[in-house]
């Protein structure tokens, strides 16, 4: 049957002020009814020129800036930057500092995944999950606050180790959180994992196969949900991750539902790492011997870590002066976001919201 009715396409401007574009992402959707014909991503509303600022600050001065890229996981950003600069100057953090860094990085991974779970559930209309995840995330932020005084942009680490010793109640707080959170994770799963509407909204939505993931250089939970076993904590261990016994969850659905399950499982594995790390915090120094004025020899490094959202890399070129000659960040959100068009074309408007949710972007990192 041929359609004689004349229909026209609708151009829908979604964002930069839209409830579920997670910040200031703007999408220009070409719609046929509710079906998406084309997507155009417009970014840059949060651009602050972080990389250029890096060229005009000393290495230590720049450290707090990285917290403000992916502000949901500031600890991971700081860890990546410290590791990169340490490699550039040939220093290594002492064992105690390394384990503490792992602890904070994993706590931060949980906090980041919790925020993701809450907000992307809210995008699908399941508003209750948001309040539960925020309640648990608060406990993580309290630990951060007790340690370094800040909750979000923590600046927890220093080049060469840590500035502060662990506070007295750290172990008790973290143990209590770990105990409590195991039960809460099961609660989330009861609320969502087998919920028929939740499954129907996510299963088969936003499929990105392993091949496509690789061609878009997608990393993190999205890649592992497509069946690729690639996690930098195992593949190129840093900061002592090789000492820990944990698994990398891998699923093969390549859809939004498996991305959700991967992130839930990753939180469980993070708890395992936290429990092990608490057992084996060595005593000793927390700061390596680092010169007061950092003047690395000319050269370049690329150091990448497994941030909650994927591979976070720092490429630093030194010309021997006080400032980096060039500082480039490889942000997981920005790279992963590029695959949106591939996934969204042919989907419905409601799916676009679900897909943005499961990519897990932070616009502070996309735009920098």
């Amino acid at each position: 049957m041929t359609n004689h009715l004349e229909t026209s396409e609708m151009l829908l401007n979604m964002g930069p002020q839209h409830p579920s574009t997670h910040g200031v992402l703007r999408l220009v959707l070409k719609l046929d009814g509710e079906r998406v014909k084309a997507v155009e991503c417009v970014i840059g509303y949060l651009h602050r020129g972080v990389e250029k600022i890096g060229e005009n600050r000393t290495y230590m001065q720049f450290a707090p800036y990285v917290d403000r890229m992916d502000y949901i996981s500031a600890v991971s950003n700081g860890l990546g930057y410290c590791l990169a600069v340490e490699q550039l100057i040939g220093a290594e953090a002492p064992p105690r500092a390394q384990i503490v860094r792992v602890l904070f990085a994993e706590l931060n991974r949980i906090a980041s995944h919790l925020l993701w779970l809450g907000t992307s559930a809210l995008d699908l209309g399941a508003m209750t999950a948001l309040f539960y995840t925020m309640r648990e995330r608060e406990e993580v932020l309290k630990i951060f606050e007790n340690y370094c005084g800040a909750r979000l942009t923590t600046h927890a680490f220093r080049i060469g180790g840590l500035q502060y010793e662990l506070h007295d109640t750290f172990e008790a707080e973290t143990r209590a959180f770990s105990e409590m959170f195991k039960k809460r994770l099961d609660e989330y799963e009861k609320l969502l994992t087998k919920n028929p509407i939740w499954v129907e909204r996510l299963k088969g939505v936003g499929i990105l196969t392993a091949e496509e993931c690789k061609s878009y250089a997608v990393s993190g939970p999205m890649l592992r949900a497509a069946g690729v076993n690639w996690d930098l904590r195992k593949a190129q261990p840093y900061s002592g991750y090789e000492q820990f016994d944990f698994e990398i969850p891998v699923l093969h659905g390549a859809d939004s539902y498996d991305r959700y399950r991967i992130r839930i499982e990753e939180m469980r594995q993070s708890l395992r790492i936290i429990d092990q790390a608490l057992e084996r915090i060595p005593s000793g120094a927390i700061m390596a011997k680092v010169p007061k004025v950092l003047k690395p020899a000319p050269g370049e490094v690329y150091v990448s870590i497994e941030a909650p959202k994927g591979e976070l890399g720092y490429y630093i070129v030194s010309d021997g002066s006080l400032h980096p000659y060039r500082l480039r960040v490889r942000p997981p959100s920005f790279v992963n976001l590029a695959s949106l068009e591939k996934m969204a074309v042919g989907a419905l408007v409601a799916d676009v919201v679900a897909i943005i949710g499961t990519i897990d972007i932070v616009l502070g990192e996309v735009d920098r």
Partner: protein
Amino acid sequence: MTFETLLPYLMAAIFAMAFPLVTGYLVLVERKILADFQARLGPMRVGPHGLLQPIADALKLILKEDTVPKDADKFLFYLAPLLSVVTAFGSFAVIPISATLRIADLNIGLLLISALAAVGVFGIILGGWSSNSNYSLLGALRGAAQLISYEVALGLSLVTVVMLSGTLSMQGIVEAQFNQRIWFLFGNYGLMLLSFFIFLIAAVAEVNRAPFDLPEAESEIVAGYHTEYSGFRWALYMLAEYTNIFIICAVAATVFFGGWLRPFANIEWLAYPMDAIFPAALLFLSAWGCARMKLFPFTALLGISGLVFLIPAVATALSAPFWFFLKVSAVFYVLIWFRASWPRLRYDQLMDLGWKRLIPLALGALLANAIIGML
């Protein structure tokens, strides 16, 4: 004119004047219950425990600037919210709160409610279309498709009730439940449970509540058909929405749960326990529950007011409204429960559920009920 002839007019006037306030408090109750599900407190700032929040909200909305988008169809833009409100309020005419407390006993009561709900769609379509905004248009289209689809299932499930009662009058349906000594929820050897299940799903879709709140899905299309509305006109849409929720809960209570009848209405000796002791105990218990919130003057008042039910004359007079509103509240609570626990369906899944599952199921239920009824 006697009091009996005046009563309907009086009730209509009271309904029309009081319902905006009642709606405001329905919203407050919903926010409080939802907050309880979500491990938070809900409104707390305006008045003790947020008790004056609805009044503050209403004042804010009335005082807000009344904006009309550029290039909007002004006449329809003004008309649409009114259409929604008028059709929602119209349904009140046939809701019986007790055997005497009602505005009108029409012999087509149930039909009138369905018809008014159908006309109410125009409020959504016209509001969305006249706003001249993409989001509004998407919301309006979703609303129209959804309401038309689910009206069929809703109608079919109500037909099974009519087959049992033999009348379309709301009053008659309650009386039929009294005469047949059974709530229609359990009628036809439990087969009516299926009808109620279909009715509940279709009713939630009919009033655009989660998980069927697609026409105003915040995370997808901002606010759907009322994106461009603000201030008083927006308040009218909200008024219509919550009135519709009340109506649909009242219909459920009336046709499935025996309306104003107490449980076991035919057993004489249960009259005093059910009409007097139960309400008194319930109010006292809820007052005790509220004491947790440190609202002593209010809770004490609530607890004492429960005691009046122990006077036999008062119990006879007040038990019917008490049971009616208790049943309405129970259904309302279930709707909030839905909202707290389920994500939103997608547009194509909604149509799928409506046309491919609910309507065949409703037809099957209708057929099965008809066969059992003939036996």
